[in-house]
C-alpha cells in the first residue's frame, strides 16, 4: 500500500533484526526528518560513496572494515578559556545501550585540526577526559594515535577504541563519552579575544563507532541446532562405546 506506514505490517514479525530496527529506530512518519547537514553529513556521504555504488551495492574493494558505522555528534559543549591563548571545549557524546549482536570494532574521533575562526587560525587536538569523581576532573594520560583522515585532508582521525572499550563499553545504562577539544591560537594572534562562545563544535568534531554484525553467531551460541545436539549425543555415545 503505497505511502502508508509499514510499521503495522512489520509488527507481525518482530523477531528479525531488520524488523526490530525498523520498529525501534525509524523515526515516525509524523516526525520531522532530522536535519543533519554540514560537515558530518558530507563526511558520511563521502564514506558511503567510497563503500557503495549509486545503487547501494557494497564495493568489493571497500576498506571500511565493518558492516555498520554510526556517526555520533556531541550533545553540548562548554567553552572556557584557560591560561594564555588556549581554548578548551568539553564534548559529551551519548552512547546508546549495547546490542548483543553488534561488536564494537573501532572508535574514532574525527576533528578539524586547523580551525579558522573570526579571522584567526587555530590548531586543535582532542584528548580523552576522565572524570574521577564529581568534584575533581582529571585529564587522562591516555591519548589515541592521530593521523590524517583517508577521506579528506581537512580531517584528523584519532583512534580511541581502547579508551572507549576499557572505560565505557561494558557499563550499563546511560553512558556519555567525554572528550576535550583543545585549540590554540597560532603564533602572532595570541592575546586577542576570540568569540569562542559563539561557535559550535558540533561541526568540528564527531565520533565514529564501527561495528560488526554478529547476529548469526549470537543466534548459534544461544540455540544450538537440533541436528547438532543430536550429533553431539550420538558422538559421545560412540565415544563411550569405544571406551568400553
Amino acid at each position, binding site marked *: 500500500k*503505497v*505511502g*502508508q*506506514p*509499514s510499521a503495522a505490517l512489520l509488527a507481525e514479525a518482530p523477531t528479525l533484526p*531488520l524488523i526490530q530496527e*525498523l520498529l525501534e*529506530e*525509524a*523515526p515516525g*512518519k509524523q*516526525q520531522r*526528518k*532530522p536535519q*543533519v547537514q554540514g560537515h*558530518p*553529513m558530507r563526511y*558520511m*556521504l563521502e*564514506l*558511503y560513496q567510497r*563503500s*557503495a555504488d*549509486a*545503487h*547501494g*551495492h*557494497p564495493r568489493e574493494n571497500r576498506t*571500511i572494515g565493518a*558492516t*555498520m*558505522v*554510526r*556517526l*555520533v*555528534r556531541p550533545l553540548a559543549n562548554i567553552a572556557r578559556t584557560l591560561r594564555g591563548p588556549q581554548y578548551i571545549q568539553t564534548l559529551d557524546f*551519548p552512547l546508546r545501550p549495547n546490542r548483543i549482536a553488534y561488536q564494537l570494532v573501532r572508535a574514532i574521533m574525527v576533528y578539524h585540526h586547523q580551525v579558522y575562526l573570526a579571522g584567526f587560525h587555530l590548531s586543535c587536538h582532542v584528548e580523552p577526559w576522565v572524570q574521577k569523581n564529581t568534584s575533581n576532573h582529571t585529564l587522562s594520560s591516555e591519548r589515541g594515535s592521530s593521523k590524517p583522515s583517508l577521506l579528506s585532508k581537512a580531517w584528523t582521525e584519532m583512534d580511541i577504541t581502547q579508551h572507549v572499550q576499557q572505560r565505557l563499553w561494558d557499563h550499563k545504562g546511560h553512558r556519555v563519552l567525554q572528550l576535550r577539544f583543545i585549540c590554540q591560537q597560532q603564533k602572532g594572534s595570541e592575546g586577542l579575544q576570540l568569540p569562542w562562545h559563539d561557535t559550535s563544535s558540533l561541526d568540528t568534531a564527531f565520533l565514529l563507532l564501527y561495528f560488526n*554484525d554478529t547476529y548469526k553467531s549470537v543466534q548459534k551460541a544461544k540455540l544450538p541446532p537440533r541436528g547438532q545436539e543430536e550429533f553431539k549425543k550420538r558422538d559421545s555415545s560412540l565415544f563411550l562405546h569405544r571406551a568400553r
Partner: protein
Amino acid sequence: RAAIITSKILGPTQEHVGSESNQCSLHHFQVSFHQLGWDHWIIAPNLYTPNYCKGACPRVLRYGLNSPNHAIIQNLVNELVDQNVPQPSCVPYKYAPISILLVEANGSILYKEYKDMIAQSCTC
C-alpha cells in the same frame, strides 16, 4: 510411476510447452524508499532493487534451478501420494547485500550493510 516422471529429465519436457515465460525465474523490480514510506529516514540510495522470484516450478525440476533433494521428493509426493502436499514454490536462492545511509531519530548518521536484501537467483 516415479520412473515415468524421472525419465522425463532425459528427454525434452512436453508438459509446459507454451508456458516457458511462466516458469520460475528472477524478475527485475525496483522500488523507491518513498514508496516504502522510509524516505524520511533513508538518505542513500534513492532506489532499491529487491527483485523477486515468480513462476511455476516444473514438474520435473531442471538442474539449473539448484533445487534441493527435498523439492524433488515433494514433487513426487504431490503427484503420487497426496495432492494436499503442494508442489515446491519458486523462491530466491542467492541474495546480495545493500548499503544504506540513514539518519536516526536522535540525529546520528548511520552507514549500514544489510545482508540478503537483493534476490539474485531463484530456486524451487
